[in-house]
């Protein structure tokens, strides 16, 4: 009961502290808000880029075209050789008939042209479609496949994929770096802003010490105050994340520039991001307060 009363008093004092020193609290809240907005943008960008990379990686396939003269035995031999290559995740044989029917299904134009081809006339080749375990190794795998006897051509969007992936990876790392840097900078800024708040309340802390408040008695309301500042500071970033990202997603119909680059679906992504923002806000606010009040306890 006594502990509950003390907790209740601490929370009440913390709220009082926020509102009675509103101009300084407002400075701290604004500081948290602005940084969390930038953190939100970085998280959204970083996660989407990461998502693009995964989608690209999932879609990238090496297509190995098999000589039309290759016998069934030869095709099996090729299969064995492909399976022995490192970094091959899976491979699938697609006969020229399968490819033809897929193409005919996909377009009326193809259908009208291809329906009169027989097996002899068709320029379509049998293929092996190969997926790799690590997209960075795609060059190596493609080169090895190319050397297999009976393979006439290997295609996988070489060059373009490499640069796309490395660009994505760079942006992803850059965003993550920005998030970490921003969190550190905010913690420092908050700590300084709260330090000003606390300096202006040094008298209060002095009086608390004088009437027999322990360090914990003094520190806890300030730490809760930091928590409240963090919580209040994360309101706008959370709203912007939820509504901003959802409307962005709807505006672009869930894809950026091409169907190839899909955006992450808003639910549950925006809620997860919001939770991260609130947690960052709270931790940064609490840490800032704790750091700032520590200095004033050696009276």
């Amino acid at each position: 009961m006594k502990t509950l009363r003390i907790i209740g008093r601490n929370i009440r004092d913390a709220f009082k502290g926020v509102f009675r020193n509103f101009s300084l609290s407002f400075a701290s809240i604004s500081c948290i808000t602005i940084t969390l907005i930038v953190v939100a943008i970085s998280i959204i960008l970083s996660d989407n880029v990461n998502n693009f990379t995964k989608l690209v990686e999932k879609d990238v396939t090496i297509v190995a075209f098999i000589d039309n003269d290759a016998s069934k035995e030869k095709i099996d031999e090729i299969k064995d050789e492909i399976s022995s290559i490192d970094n091959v995740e899976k491979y699938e044989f697609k006969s020229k008939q399968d490819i033809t029917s897929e193409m005919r299904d996909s377009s009326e134009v193809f259908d009208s042209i291809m329906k009169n081809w027989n097996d002899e006339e068709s320029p379509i080749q049998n293929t092996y479609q190969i997926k790799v375990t690590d997209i960075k190794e795609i060059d190596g795998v493609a080169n090895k496949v190319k050397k297999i006897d009976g393979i006439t051509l290997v295609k996988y969007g070489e060059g373009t994929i490499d640069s796309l992936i490395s660009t994505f990876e760079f942006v992803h790392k850059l965003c993550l770096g920005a998030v970490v840097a921003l969190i550190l900078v905010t913690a420092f800024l908050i700590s300084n802003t709260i330090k000003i708040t606390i300096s202006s309340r040094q008298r209060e802390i002095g009086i608390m010490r004088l009437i027999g408040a322990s360090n914990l008695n003094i520190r806890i309301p300030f730490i809760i105050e930091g928590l409240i500042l963090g919580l209040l500071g994360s309101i706008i970033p959370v709203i912007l994340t939820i509504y901003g990202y959802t409307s962005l997603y709807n505006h672009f119909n869930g894809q950026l520039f091409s169907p190839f680059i899909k955006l992450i679906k808003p639910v549950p992504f925006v809620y997860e991001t919001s939770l991260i923002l609130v947690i960052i806000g709270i931790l940064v606010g609490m840490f800032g307060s704790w750091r700032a009040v520590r200095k004033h306890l050696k009276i």
Partner: protein
Amino acid sequence: MELIRLTKVRKTYKTGVTAIQDLNLSIKKGQFVFIIGSTGCGKSTLIKMLYREEKPTAGQIIVGGIDVGKLRNGKVYKIRRKIGVVFQDFKLLPKSTVYENVAFALEIFGLPKDEIHSKVIKALELVGLKSKIKNYPAQLSGGEQQRVAIARAIVNGPKLLICDEPTGNLDKNTGMEIMRVLEEINKLGTTIIMVTHDIDIVKKLQKRVIVLDSGRVVKDYAEGTYNK
């Protein structure tokens, strides 16, 4: 019964100034003691050591059974809870009402609301400020502010009340009002140690008077014997 005992106490500041030297003193429970002396004689240092704002360089200070000099910073609250302190500049929270300023001292310890209320009202009644519980310090006169500070100092029922020039900022009449309040508190059993420059008050009240000079006790007048 003894409440305070100082044995061979010395205080030398980092600047090299020795404020108190070789001081022995004993104060009994329920006494009202004035500490007087010229500026720089060590009065403030002496009482600051009693509530452990300063640590003695040498010697021992026992207050209510606690060796104050040995308390670490984190444990200072233990002695502060047994002592009420009143200052010349009142040290009130300007953004809190009279009631909140006094209740503040009890809320920290997690007392129930009802108990806090009755104790705060009782303390404010004792200093004659019950009618102003909703006022802010800035809306009160100097004497009233000092009475709030006294109420805050005694609300917790301390055994010892330390007053550092409580009338220093007040006119003569208001100062006497404060002294009447302090006498009232003393009659209820609280030991009072008061530092002052106001010789008129000291003469009028005829309590025990300790005279300090250069950090030493030069005179110790028993109750009713001071007549400078």
